[in-house]
Protein backbone atom coordinates (compact mmCIF):
# COMPACT_ATOMS: atom_id res chain seq x y z
CA UNK A 1 0.00 0.00 0.00
CA UNK A 2 1.47 3.25 -1.15
CA UNK A 3 -0.02 5.15 1.78
CA UNK A 4 2.63 3.71 4.07
CA UNK A 5 5.20 5.63 2.09
CA UNK A 6 4.19 8.66 4.15
CA UNK A 7 6.81 7.68 6.65
CA UNK A 8 9.58 8.21 4.13
CA UNK A 9 8.70 11.88 4.35
CA UNK A 10 9.61 11.76 8.00
CA UNK A 11 13.06 10.29 7.53
CA UNK A 12 11.92 7.38 9.60
CA UNK A 13 14.76 4.96 10.01
CA UNK A 14 13.48 2.98 12.95
CA UNK A 15 14.78 -0.52 13.35
CA UNK A 16 12.37 -1.31 16.13
CA UNK A 17 11.06 -4.82 16.26
CA UNK A 18 8.61 -6.63 18.48
CA UNK A 19 10.51 -7.96 21.47
CA UNK A 20 10.53 -11.57 22.60
CA UNK A 21 8.65 -11.77 25.89
CA UNK A 22 9.51 -13.55 29.13
CA UNK A 23 6.45 -14.46 31.16
CA UNK A 24 6.65 -15.79 34.71
CA UNK A 25 3.64 -17.94 35.54
CA UNK A 26 2.11 -17.92 39.01
CA UNK A 27 0.15 -21.06 39.80
CA UNK A 28 -2.54 -20.05 42.22
CA UNK A 29 -4.63 -22.32 44.42
CA UNK A 30 -7.31 -20.84 46.66
CA UNK A 31 -5.75 -17.41 46.32
CA UNK A 32 -2.19 -18.47 47.19
CA UNK A 33 0.89 -19.13 45.04
CA UNK A 34 1.37 -22.89 45.03
CA UNK A 35 5.14 -22.76 45.22
CA UNK A 36 6.31 -19.68 47.05
CA UNK A 37 8.96 -17.52 45.46
CA UNK A 38 12.37 -17.62 46.97
CA UNK A 39 14.44 -15.47 44.65
CA UNK A 40 13.65 -12.32 46.55
CA UNK A 41 12.75 -11.46 50.10
CA UNK A 42 9.01 -11.11 50.26
CA UNK A 43 6.95 -10.46 53.34
CA UNK A 44 4.63 -13.19 52.20
CA UNK A 45 6.10 -15.58 49.65
CA UNK A 46 2.68 -17.09 49.03
CA UNK A 47 0.93 -13.86 48.11
CA UNK A 48 0.45 -13.74 44.33
CA UNK A 49 0.20 -9.95 44.35
CA UNK A 50 3.56 -9.51 46.05
CA UNK A 51 5.06 -12.03 43.65
CA UNK A 52 3.63 -10.17 40.66
CA UNK A 53 5.02 -6.86 41.92
CA UNK A 54 8.46 -8.43 42.38
CA UNK A 55 8.39 -9.84 38.84
CA UNK A 56 7.22 -6.52 37.45
CA UNK A 57 10.22 -4.79 39.03
CA UNK A 58 12.51 -7.53 37.75
CA UNK A 59 11.45 -6.67 34.20
CA UNK A 60 8.89 -9.39 33.38
CA UNK A 61 7.14 -8.54 30.13
CA UNK A 62 3.81 -9.92 31.23
CA UNK A 63 2.47 -11.88 34.19
CA UNK A 64 0.34 -14.97 33.94
CA UNK A 65 -1.92 -16.18 36.74
CA UNK A 66 -3.09 -19.74 36.45
CA UNK A 67 -5.83 -20.88 38.79
CA UNK A 68 -5.03 -24.57 39.11
CA UNK A 69 -8.13 -25.46 41.10
CA UNK A 70 -10.47 -22.99 39.50
CA UNK A 71 -13.93 -23.47 40.81
CA UNK A 72 -16.88 -21.18 40.69
CA UNK A 73 -16.85 -20.48 44.43
CA UNK A 74 -13.17 -19.60 44.45
CA UNK A 75 -13.30 -17.20 41.51
CA UNK A 76 -13.67 -14.04 43.67
CA UNK A 77 -10.19 -14.78 45.04
CA UNK A 78 -8.70 -14.55 41.54
CA UNK A 79 -10.61 -11.34 40.82
CA UNK A 80 -9.23 -9.83 44.01
CA UNK A 81 -5.68 -10.87 43.05
CA UNK A 82 -6.07 -9.24 39.63
CA UNK A 83 -7.51 -6.04 41.04
CA UNK A 84 -4.75 -5.63 43.58
CA UNK A 85 -2.08 -6.46 40.99
CA UNK A 86 -3.50 -4.01 38.46
CA UNK A 87 -3.27 -1.22 41.04
CA UNK A 88 0.47 -1.72 41.26
CA UNK A 89 1.73 -3.38 38.08
CA UNK A 90 1.29 -1.49 34.84
CA UNK A 91 2.14 -4.32 32.48
CA UNK A 92 -0.08 -6.88 30.76
CA UNK A 93 -1.74 -9.46 32.99
CA UNK A 94 -3.32 -12.71 31.90
CA UNK A 95 -5.48 -15.15 33.80
CA UNK A 96 -6.60 -18.68 33.13
CA UNK A 97 -7.89 -21.87 34.63
CA UNK A 98 -11.36 -23.37 34.54
CA UNK A 99 -13.03 -20.63 32.47
CA UNK A 100 -16.26 -21.99 31.02
CA UNK A 101 -18.58 -19.04 30.44
CA UNK A 102 -18.57 -15.54 28.97
CA UNK A 103 -19.46 -14.03 32.34
CA UNK A 104 -16.27 -15.43 33.84
CA UNK A 105 -14.24 -13.79 31.05
CA UNK A 106 -16.02 -10.50 31.53
CA UNK A 107 -15.39 -10.57 35.28
CA UNK A 108 -11.67 -11.27 34.79
CA UNK A 109 -11.28 -8.50 32.20
CA UNK A 110 -13.12 -6.01 34.39
CA UNK A 111 -10.82 -6.87 37.28
CA UNK A 112 -7.70 -5.92 35.34
CA UNK A 113 -6.83 -8.94 33.21
CA UNK A 114 -5.82 -8.01 29.67
CA UNK A 115 -6.07 -11.54 28.37
CA UNK A 116 -7.72 -14.75 29.45
CA UNK A 117 -6.59 -18.22 28.50
CA UNK A 118 -9.10 -20.86 27.55
CA UNK A 119 -8.11 -24.52 27.81
CA UNK A 120 -10.50 -27.44 28.14
CA UNK A 121 -13.51 -25.43 26.96
CA UNK A 122 -11.71 -24.57 23.69
CA UNK A 123 -11.33 -28.28 22.96
CA UNK A 124 -14.80 -29.29 24.05
CA UNK A 125 -16.60 -26.36 22.50
CA UNK A 126 -14.53 -24.47 19.90
CA UNK A 127 -17.50 -22.22 19.13
CA UNK A 128 -17.13 -20.81 22.62
CA UNK A 129 -13.78 -19.35 21.50
CA UNK A 130 -15.59 -17.75 18.58
CA UNK A 131 -18.25 -16.27 20.81
CA UNK A 132 -15.63 -14.99 23.25
CA UNK A 133 -13.57 -13.42 20.46
CA UNK A 134 -16.62 -11.76 18.95
CA UNK A 135 -17.69 -10.42 22.32
CA UNK A 136 -14.35 -9.24 23.73
CA UNK A 137 -12.01 -9.19 20.71
CA UNK A 138 -9.39 -11.73 19.65
CA UNK A 139 -6.67 -9.67 21.31
CA UNK A 140 -7.78 -10.85 24.75
CA UNK A 141 -8.46 -14.49 23.93
CA UNK A 142 -5.50 -16.83 24.36
CA UNK A 143 -6.10 -20.53 23.79
CA UNK A 144 -3.95 -22.80 25.85
CA UNK A 145 -2.98 -26.08 24.19
CA UNK A 146 -1.42 -28.89 26.21
CA UNK A 147 0.32 -31.21 23.76
CA UNK A 148 2.11 -34.51 24.08
CA UNK A 149 4.12 -36.39 21.50
CA UNK A 150 2.32 -39.59 20.61
CA UNK A 151 4.45 -40.84 17.72
CA UNK A 152 7.14 -43.46 18.24
CA UNK A 153 10.88 -42.70 17.97
CA UNK A 154 11.20 -43.71 14.32
CA UNK A 155 8.05 -42.07 13.05
CA UNK A 156 7.43 -38.50 11.91
CA UNK A 157 6.49 -36.53 15.02
CA UNK A 158 2.84 -36.21 15.90
CA UNK A 159 1.50 -34.31 18.89
CA UNK A 160 -1.89 -34.77 20.43
CA UNK A 161 -3.96 -32.30 22.44
CA UNK A 162 -4.62 -33.33 26.05
CA UNK A 163 -6.99 -31.82 28.59
CA UNK A 164 -7.60 -32.19 32.32
CA UNK A 165 -4.01 -31.37 33.15
CA UNK A 166 -2.67 -33.98 30.73
CA UNK A 167 -4.86 -36.85 31.86
CA UNK A 168 -7.34 -36.88 29.02
CA UNK A 169 -6.27 -37.64 25.44
CA UNK A 170 -8.54 -35.91 22.97
CA UNK A 171 -7.31 -37.63 19.81
CA UNK A 172 -6.85 -34.20 18.19
CA UNK A 173 -3.68 -33.37 16.30
CA UNK A 174 -2.15 -30.34 18.02
CA UNK A 175 -1.17 -28.64 14.75
CA UNK A 176 -4.61 -29.01 13.20
CA UNK A 177 -6.27 -27.92 16.40
CA UNK A 178 -4.07 -24.79 16.60
CA UNK A 179 -4.92 -23.88 13.00
CA UNK A 180 -8.61 -24.43 13.60
CA UNK A 181 -8.83 -22.50 16.85
CA UNK A 182 -7.12 -19.48 15.28
CA UNK A 183 -9.78 -19.42 12.58
CA UNK A 184 -12.32 -19.36 15.44
CA UNK A 185 -10.70 -16.19 16.73
CA UNK A 186 -7.91 -17.13 19.15
CA UNK A 187 -5.52 -14.17 19.24
CA UNK A 188 -2.64 -16.08 20.78
CA UNK A 189 -1.64 -19.67 21.57
CA UNK A 190 -0.17 -20.74 24.90
CA UNK A 191 1.54 -24.01 24.01
CA UNK A 192 2.58 -26.34 26.81
CA UNK A 193 4.54 -29.50 26.22
CA UNK A 194 3.28 -32.11 28.67
CA UNK A 195 6.38 -34.21 27.99
CA UNK A 196 8.66 -31.40 29.11
CA UNK A 197 6.58 -29.65 31.76
CA UNK A 198 8.40 -29.71 35.07
CA UNK A 199 11.38 -31.61 33.62
CA UNK A 200 13.86 -28.76 33.23
CA UNK A 201 15.11 -30.51 30.07
CA UNK A 202 14.23 -27.67 27.74
CA UNK A 203 11.22 -26.57 25.74
CA UNK A 204 9.90 -28.92 23.07
CA UNK A 205 11.47 -27.05 20.16
CA UNK A 206 10.10 -29.21 17.28
CA UNK A 207 6.57 -28.91 18.69
CA UNK A 208 6.94 -25.13 19.06
CA UNK A 209 8.30 -24.85 15.51
CA UNK A 210 5.44 -26.93 14.13
CA UNK A 211 2.87 -24.64 15.76
CA UNK A 212 4.59 -21.33 14.96
CA UNK A 213 4.82 -22.45 11.32
CA UNK A 214 1.15 -23.40 11.31
CA UNK A 215 -0.47 -20.23 12.69
CA UNK A 216 -0.16 -16.49 12.11
CA UNK A 217 -0.73 -15.43 15.71
CA UNK A 218 1.75 -15.14 18.52
CA UNK A 219 2.81 -18.36 20.27
CA UNK A 220 3.92 -18.60 23.90
CA UNK A 221 6.09 -21.68 24.53
CA UNK A 222 5.80 -23.32 27.92
CA UNK A 223 7.10 -26.37 29.74
CA UNK A 224 10.66 -27.51 30.27
CA UNK A 225 12.73 -24.37 30.89
CA UNK A 226 15.86 -25.30 32.85
CA UNK A 227 18.76 -23.29 31.47
CA UNK A 228 19.27 -20.01 29.67
CA UNK A 229 20.13 -21.87 26.47
CA UNK A 230 16.68 -23.43 26.54
CA UNK A 231 15.20 -19.96 26.13
CA UNK A 232 17.58 -19.12 23.29
CA UNK A 233 16.66 -22.37 21.52
CA UNK A 234 12.91 -21.94 21.77
CA UNK A 235 13.15 -18.41 20.34
CA UNK A 236 15.75 -19.07 17.67
CA UNK A 237 14.86 -22.59 16.57
CA UNK A 238 11.26 -22.80 17.76
CA UNK A 239 10.21 -19.36 16.50
CA UNK A 240 8.32 -18.65 19.73
CA UNK A 241 7.15 -15.08 20.43
CA UNK A 242 7.23 -15.51 24.18
CA UNK A 243 8.39 -18.07 26.71
CA UNK A 244 6.59 -18.87 29.90
CA UNK A 245 8.28 -20.43 32.91
CA UNK A 246 7.66 -20.93 36.60
CA UNK A 247 10.25 -22.80 38.64
CA UNK A 248 13.44 -21.38 37.09
CA UNK A 249 12.22 -17.93 38.02
CA UNK A 250 10.54 -18.84 41.32
CA UNK A 251 13.58 -20.74 42.61
CA UNK A 252 15.98 -18.10 41.39
CA UNK A 253 17.92 -20.43 39.06
CA UNK A 254 18.38 -17.17 37.17
CA UNK A 255 16.68 -13.83 37.22
CA UNK A 256 14.74 -12.18 34.43
CA UNK A 257 17.48 -9.55 33.84
CA UNK A 258 20.06 -12.37 33.60
CA UNK A 259 17.89 -14.21 31.11
CA UNK A 260 17.40 -11.06 29.03
CA UNK A 261 21.08 -10.18 29.02
CA UNK A 262 21.86 -13.72 27.85
CA UNK A 263 19.29 -13.47 25.09
CA UNK A 264 20.58 -10.10 23.97
CA UNK A 265 24.05 -11.62 23.57
CA UNK A 266 22.45 -14.28 21.38
CA UNK A 267 20.94 -11.47 19.23
CA UNK A 268 17.40 -12.07 20.40
CA UNK A 269 15.50 -8.77 20.69
CA UNK A 270 14.42 -8.19 24.28
CA UNK A 271 13.11 -5.29 26.32
CA UNK A 272 15.62 -4.21 28.91
CA UNK A 273 14.10 -0.94 30.12
CA UNK A 274 14.55 0.08 33.72
CA UNK A 275 11.58 -1.48 35.50
CA UNK A 276 12.69 -0.82 39.07
CA UNK A 277 9.84 1.64 39.42
CA UNK A 278 6.94 1.56 40.10
Amino acid at each position, binding site marked *: *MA*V*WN*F*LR*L*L*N*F*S*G*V*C*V*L*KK*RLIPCLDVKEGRVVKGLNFVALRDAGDPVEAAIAY*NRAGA*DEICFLDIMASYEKRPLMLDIL*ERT*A*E*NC*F*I*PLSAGGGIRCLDAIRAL*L*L*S*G*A*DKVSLGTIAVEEPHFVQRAAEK*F*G*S*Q*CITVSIDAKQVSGPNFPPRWEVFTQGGRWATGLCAINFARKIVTYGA*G*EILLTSIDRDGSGEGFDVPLTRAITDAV*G*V*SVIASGGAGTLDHFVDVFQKG*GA*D*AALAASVFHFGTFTIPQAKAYMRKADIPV*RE*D*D*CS*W*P
Partner: protein
Amino acid sequence: MNVTVIDYGSGNLYSVQKALEFVIREWGLSCTLRVSNDPREIVHADRIVLPGVGSFRGCMRGLQGISGMVEALICRVRRESCPFLGICVGMQLMASHGLEHGFETGLGWIDGHVALMTPPLCGGERVKIPHMGWNQLTAVRAHDVLSAISSEKEGAHAYFIHSYAFVPLSGAEHVVACTMHGRPVTAMIARDNLVGVQFHPEKSGRFGLSLLADFLTWKP
Protein backbone atom coordinates in the same frame (compact mmCIF):
# COMPACT_ATOMS: atom_id res chain seq x y z
CA MET B 1 -8.61 19.78 37.67
CA ASN B 2 -11.26 17.35 36.48
CA VAL B 3 -9.98 14.33 34.58
CA THR B 4 -12.75 12.38 32.92
CA VAL B 5 -12.40 8.90 31.48
CA ILE B 6 -15.26 8.19 29.13
CA ASP B 7 -17.08 4.97 29.88
CA TYR B 8 -19.02 3.90 26.83
CA GLY B 9 -19.12 0.20 27.47
CA SER B 10 -15.88 -0.48 25.68
CA GLY B 11 -13.88 -3.05 27.55
CA ASN B 12 -11.59 -2.63 30.46
CA LEU B 13 -11.44 0.80 32.03
CA TYR B 14 -10.04 -0.54 35.29
CA SER B 15 -6.40 -0.45 34.21
CA VAL B 16 -6.68 3.04 32.71
CA GLN B 17 -8.38 4.28 35.86
CA LYS B 18 -5.79 2.68 38.18
CA ALA B 19 -2.87 3.99 36.12
CA LEU B 20 -4.27 7.54 36.19
CA GLU B 21 -4.93 7.30 39.94
CA PHE B 22 -1.36 6.11 40.42
CA VAL B 23 0.06 8.98 38.37
CA ILE B 24 -2.07 11.58 40.17
CA ARG B 25 -0.86 10.21 43.52
CA GLU B 26 2.82 9.75 42.64
CA TRP B 27 3.20 13.06 40.81
CA GLY B 28 1.21 14.84 43.51
CA LEU B 29 -1.20 16.37 40.98
CA SER B 30 -4.34 18.03 42.22
CA CYS B 31 -6.75 16.20 39.97
CA THR B 32 -10.11 14.60 40.51
CA LEU B 33 -10.62 11.48 38.43
CA ARG B 34 -14.03 10.53 37.16
CA VAL B 35 -15.15 7.62 35.04
CA SER B 36 -18.35 8.69 33.40
CA ASN B 37 -20.86 8.02 30.66
CA ASP B 38 -22.66 11.30 31.28
CA PRO B 39 -22.24 13.95 28.54
CA ARG B 40 -22.95 16.63 31.15
CA GLU B 41 -19.76 15.70 32.98
CA ILE B 42 -17.75 15.95 29.78
CA VAL B 43 -18.66 19.61 29.56
CA HIS B 44 -16.92 20.25 32.89
CA ALA B 45 -13.82 18.13 32.20
CA ASP B 46 -10.36 19.70 32.05
CA ARG B 47 -8.80 16.56 30.63
CA ILE B 48 -10.63 13.90 28.64
CA VAL B 49 -9.40 10.34 28.17
CA LEU B 50 -11.09 8.09 25.62
CA PRO B 51 -9.99 4.46 25.97
CA GLY B 52 -11.16 1.78 23.59
CA VAL B 53 -10.92 -1.96 23.20
CA GLY B 54 -12.53 -3.99 20.45
CA SER B 55 -13.41 -2.90 16.95
CA PHE B 56 -13.58 0.59 15.38
CA ARG B 57 -17.21 0.07 14.48
CA GLY B 58 -18.15 -1.34 17.90
CA CYS B 59 -16.51 1.57 19.71
CA MET B 60 -17.91 4.26 17.40
CA ARG B 61 -21.40 2.81 17.78
CA GLY B 62 -20.91 2.59 21.54
CA LEU B 63 -20.02 6.27 21.67
CA GLN B 64 -22.96 7.21 19.43
CA GLY B 65 -25.22 5.03 21.56
CA ILE B 66 -24.96 7.51 24.44
CA SER B 67 -27.30 10.36 23.67
CA GLY B 68 -25.43 13.65 23.40
CA MET B 69 -21.97 12.15 23.95
CA VAL B 70 -20.46 12.86 20.53
CA GLU B 71 -21.90 16.39 20.57
CA ALA B 72 -20.51 17.00 24.08
CA LEU B 73 -17.08 15.76 22.96
CA ILE B 74 -17.06 17.95 19.87
CA CYS B 75 -18.09 20.94 21.94
CA ARG B 76 -15.59 20.44 24.78
CA VAL B 77 -12.66 19.13 22.76
CA ARG B 78 -12.90 20.86 19.41
CA ARG B 79 -14.57 24.15 20.26
CA GLU B 80 -13.30 24.68 23.82
CA SER B 81 -9.89 23.01 23.27
CA CYS B 82 -9.96 20.68 26.26
CA PRO B 83 -6.85 18.44 26.14
CA PHE B 84 -7.87 15.02 24.85
CA LEU B 85 -6.11 11.65 24.93
CA GLY B 86 -7.33 8.71 22.85
CA ILE B 87 -5.96 5.27 23.67
CA CYS B 88 -5.88 2.35 21.22
CA VAL B 89 -9.30 2.28 19.51
CA GLY B 90 -9.97 5.59 21.29
CA MET B 91 -7.08 7.00 19.26
CA GLN B 92 -8.31 5.35 16.08
CA LEU B 93 -11.71 7.02 16.47
CA MET B 94 -9.97 10.39 15.98
CA ALA B 95 -9.48 9.40 12.32
CA SER B 96 -11.82 10.31 9.45
CA HIS B 97 -12.97 6.73 9.07
CA GLY B 98 -12.24 3.11 9.90
CA LEU B 99 -12.30 0.03 7.69
CA GLU B 100 -12.75 -2.68 10.33
CA HIS B 101 -15.89 -4.73 9.51
CA GLY B 102 -16.64 -2.29 6.68
CA PHE B 103 -16.52 1.49 6.27
CA GLU B 104 -17.40 3.48 9.40
CA THR B 105 -17.14 7.23 9.86
CA GLY B 106 -14.95 8.36 12.77
CA LEU B 107 -14.78 11.62 14.69
CA GLY B 108 -12.74 13.04 11.81
CA TRP B 109 -10.38 15.12 13.93
CA ILE B 110 -7.22 13.98 12.20
CA ASP B 111 -7.23 13.22 8.50
CA GLY B 112 -6.55 9.54 8.02
CA HIS B 113 -8.10 6.13 8.04
CA VAL B 114 -7.72 3.00 10.14
CA ALA B 115 -6.86 -0.05 8.05
CA LEU B 116 -5.82 -3.65 8.61
CA MET B 117 -2.07 -3.96 8.97
CA THR B 118 -0.58 -5.92 6.10
CA PRO B 119 3.09 -6.40 6.92
CA PRO B 120 5.30 -8.09 4.33
CA LEU B 121 7.49 -11.08 5.18
CA CYS B 122 10.45 -10.05 7.26
CA GLY B 123 13.61 -12.09 6.75
CA GLY B 124 11.45 -14.91 5.40
CA GLU B 125 9.41 -15.01 8.63
CA ARG B 126 5.76 -14.13 8.74
CA VAL B 127 5.07 -10.90 10.64
CA LYS B 128 2.26 -11.71 13.02
CA ILE B 129 -1.11 -10.05 13.38
CA PRO B 130 -2.32 -8.98 15.94
CA HIS B 131 0.73 -6.83 16.61
CA MET B 132 0.97 -7.96 20.22
CA GLY B 133 3.75 -7.17 22.64
CA TRP B 134 6.45 -4.65 23.48
CA ASN B 135 7.78 -2.56 20.64
CA GLN B 136 10.07 0.43 20.59
CA LEU B 137 8.95 3.93 19.73
CA THR B 138 10.73 6.36 17.47
CA ALA B 139 9.70 9.97 17.88
CA VAL B 140 9.45 11.61 14.46
CA ARG B 141 8.84 15.03 15.96
CA ALA B 142 9.00 16.51 19.44
CA HIS B 143 5.86 16.69 21.50
CA ASP B 144 5.23 17.71 25.11
CA VAL B 145 3.31 14.51 25.84
CA LEU B 146 6.24 12.45 24.62
CA SER B 147 8.96 14.13 26.66
CA ALA B 148 10.10 10.75 28.00
CA ILE B 149 11.51 9.68 24.65
CA SER B 150 12.02 12.81 22.63
CA SER B 151 15.41 13.31 24.18
CA GLU B 152 16.62 9.72 23.94
CA LYS B 153 18.24 8.06 20.99
CA GLU B 154 16.79 4.67 21.78
CA GLY B 155 13.04 4.94 22.17
CA ALA B 156 11.21 3.46 25.12
CA HIS B 157 9.16 0.30 24.80
CA ALA B 158 5.40 0.48 24.72
CA TYR B 159 2.84 -2.30 24.85
CA PHE B 160 0.84 -2.72 21.64
CA ILE B 161 -2.07 -4.97 20.93
CA HIS B 162 -3.95 -4.28 17.70
CA SER B 163 -4.54 -5.49 14.15
CA TYR B 164 -5.68 -2.21 12.58
CA ALA B 165 -3.61 0.95 12.43
CA PHE B 166 -3.93 4.64 11.64
CA VAL B 167 -2.70 5.75 8.21
CA PRO B 168 -2.63 9.48 7.43
CA LEU B 169 -4.27 10.29 4.12
CA SER B 170 -2.77 13.69 3.37
CA GLY B 171 0.71 14.31 4.66
CA ALA B 172 2.08 13.04 7.92
CA GLU B 173 2.38 16.25 9.91
CA HIS B 174 0.18 14.89 12.70
CA VAL B 175 2.25 11.73 13.22
CA VAL B 176 4.41 12.12 16.32
CA ALA B 177 5.84 8.64 16.84
CA CYS B 178 6.10 5.39 14.95
CA THR B 179 7.11 1.86 15.57
CA MET B 180 8.07 -0.92 13.18
CA HIS B 181 6.14 -4.11 12.58
CA GLY B 182 7.24 -5.30 9.17
CA ARG B 183 6.32 -1.79 8.06
CA PRO B 184 6.23 1.51 9.92
CA VAL B 185 3.17 1.73 12.15
CA THR B 186 1.67 4.96 13.51
CA ALA B 187 2.14 4.87 17.28
CA MET B 188 1.14 8.40 18.26
CA ILE B 189 -0.71 11.24 16.58
CA ALA B 190 -1.25 14.79 17.78
CA ARG B 191 -2.83 18.03 16.66
CA ASP B 192 -3.57 21.16 18.67
CA ASN B 193 -5.08 19.93 21.96
CA LEU B 194 -5.45 16.34 20.76
CA VAL B 195 -3.17 13.36 21.27
CA GLY B 196 -3.78 9.74 20.47
CA VAL B 197 -1.68 6.67 21.16
CA GLN B 198 -2.06 3.29 19.51
CA PHE B 199 -0.26 1.55 22.38
CA HIS B 200 -1.51 1.17 25.95
CA PRO B 201 0.24 3.65 28.25
CA GLU B 202 -1.55 2.06 31.21
CA LYS B 203 0.25 -1.19 30.36
CA SER B 204 3.62 0.23 29.32
CA GLY B 205 5.32 0.35 32.70
CA ARG B 206 7.28 3.39 33.77
CA PHE B 207 7.28 4.97 30.31
CA GLY B 208 3.51 4.71 30.02
CA LEU B 209 2.98 6.31 33.41
CA SER B 210 5.24 9.23 32.56
CA LEU B 211 3.34 9.71 29.31
CA LEU B 212 0.09 9.90 31.30
CA ALA B 213 1.73 12.39 33.67
CA ASP B 214 2.87 14.45 30.67
CA PHE B 215 -0.70 14.47 29.41
CA LEU B 216 -2.16 15.55 32.75
CA THR B 217 0.32 18.42 33.05
CA TRP B 218 0.26 19.36 29.35
CA LYS B 219 -0.63 22.91 28.41
CA PRO B 220 -1.32 22.82 24.67
